[in-house]
């Protein structure tokens, strides 16, 4: 056995080991979250229906008083609402900015806008939260009423945070389009706007959907910044100015107060499991969209 042969074998072994390690890590994390999260239903006897559809959250209520109640509906609704609204703001904005960077002002857009977007992506979420807390919340309180801590503050902060993801993925997908399509469209007598609207954006569709879903996933999983500005009340928000709570903020708020193995603690893990399943869904959606785009 010579040295070269040994290196070859060793290199192969090392890469295999690293790959296996990642798989083992992923599987064990999923196993741990699942076993804890499912215990709520199997060990503590809470029905899935109650967990998903009840908004009664009193995990520390004694059994004699009918507790503990771990209905997570308010948090689920909160997470869905705040993410959808954030995407509702960021998706059109991000796609339009991407079109601007690639098609309208390629020179200036790439020199100035793109670095700005990258910088935006690099700001830690606690800083976003802090800005929201000290700027946005008082503004809302003064001009729109209420306490300021609100769904509105939450999705505005989130929409700025997911903007870089949407812009950069959209930019890449528009830039990847063959220039021939653009030329063909111009040669048929279309204006730039018609070319963008009827050829380029539809052609980049799968990339743009991927961008939006990635933004949505990021919004859904964001905890810290949102938690700082939404007020954290355990109720389904009734207006855009009401305070609210999300799955992630419910976990961070409560996790220090619970004891491992209790229904309360397990219910938090169930929420974690729910977040995991949601991100799995987002990944699947992206896979399907990308595959469809490739087939076309």
């Amino acid at each position, binding site marked *: 056995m010579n040295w070269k042969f040994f290196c070859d074998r060793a290199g192969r072994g090392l890469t295999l080991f690293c790959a296996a390690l990642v798989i083992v890590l992923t599987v064990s994390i999923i196993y741990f979250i699942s076993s804890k999260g499912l215990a709520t239903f199997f060990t503590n006897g809470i029905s899935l229906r109650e967990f998903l559809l009840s908004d009664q959250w009193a995990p520390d209520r004694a059994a004699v008083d009918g507790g503990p109640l771990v209905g997570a509906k308010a948090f689920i609704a909160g997470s869905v609402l705040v993410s959808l609204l954030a995407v509702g703001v960021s998706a059109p904005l991000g796609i339009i900015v991407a079109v601007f960077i690639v098609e309208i002002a390629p020179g200036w857009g790439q020199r100035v806008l793109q670095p700005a977007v990258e910088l935006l992506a690099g700001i830690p979420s606690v800083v976003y939260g802090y800005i929201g807390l000290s700027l946005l919340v008082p503004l809302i309180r003064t001009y729109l009423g209420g306490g300021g801590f609100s769904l509105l503050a939450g999705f505005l902060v989130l929409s700025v945070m997911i903007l870089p993801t949407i812009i950069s993925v959209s930019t890449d997908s528009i830039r990847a389009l063959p220039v021939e*399509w653009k030329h063909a469209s111009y040669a048929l007598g279309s204006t730039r706007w018609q070319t963008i609207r*009827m050829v380029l954006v539809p*052609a980049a569709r799968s990339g743009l959907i991927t961008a939006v879903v990635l933004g949505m996933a990021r919004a859904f999983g964001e905890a810290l910044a949102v938690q700082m500005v939404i007020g954290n009340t355990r109720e389904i928000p009734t207006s855009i100015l009401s305070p609210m709570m999300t799955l992630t903020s419910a976990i961070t708020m409560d996790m220090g107060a619970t004891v491992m193995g209790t229904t309360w603690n397990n219910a938090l893990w169930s929420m974690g499991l729910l977040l995991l399943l949601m991100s799995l869904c987002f990944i699947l959606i992206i896979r399907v969209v990308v595959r469809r785009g490739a087939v076309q």
Partner: protein
Amino acid sequence: MQRMMNSVGNKMETKGLNLYYKNFQALFNVSLPVREHRVTALIGPSGCGKSTFLRTLNRMNDVIEGTRIEGEVLLDGNNIYAPGVDPVALRKKVGMVFQRPNPFPMSIFDNIAYGPRIHGIKNKETLAEIVEKSLQAAALWDEVKDRLHKSALGLSGGQQQRLVLARVLAVEPEVILMDEPASALDPISTAKLEDLIHQLKNNYTIVIVTHNMQQAARISDYTGFFLNGEMIEYDYTNNIFTAPRDKRTEDYITGRFG
């Protein structure tokens, strides 16, 4: 020669055309007539400026930053580079087929209907009529009539190039520019395309860039020979290939360079 150069029967004409990319001059004082309902071929070695020249005829060079033009390009006697001329309206009259087939990633129907739609036709029956008529004219109808709503990217290269031609015909241009339209096609597809060009000249004025000299000889009525950004010689195709007046033209068509 003098008779040919006079402006009666000229659909398009360039006069003293210079073109610069930033500081690089790509065309030198090109004056060339494009006769109505005739096929004009532009030949010459790679990089001689023939494609660049072609793209001045529908202002597609405008898309490239740093391009500057001197001289005149006339369409029906009017300078298309005059201030106030809308390149978008011009390109509706002067259509273009590119070197590589470039159908949009849409259905065959939507590809053809794209041009009419952007020019304001919304009526479904009208669009369907235009689509059928254009595909018929491009000799593609029989091959695709059962799959109009399938993606155009599923067609063969030759079919795609005829589709692109049909897409141009759908906007009813007056002039069709073709930039080496057969260079990516197999011999059978090329023959079909050449037949098509032959039929189309009854209704359209055609300018075609090719580096295939046999092709130029087969399909064109007039030929212009380009070299290093200059137009060396323009004449009846027959004359160019049998009795060229310029030594350089002769060298090129006899295969001494290029």
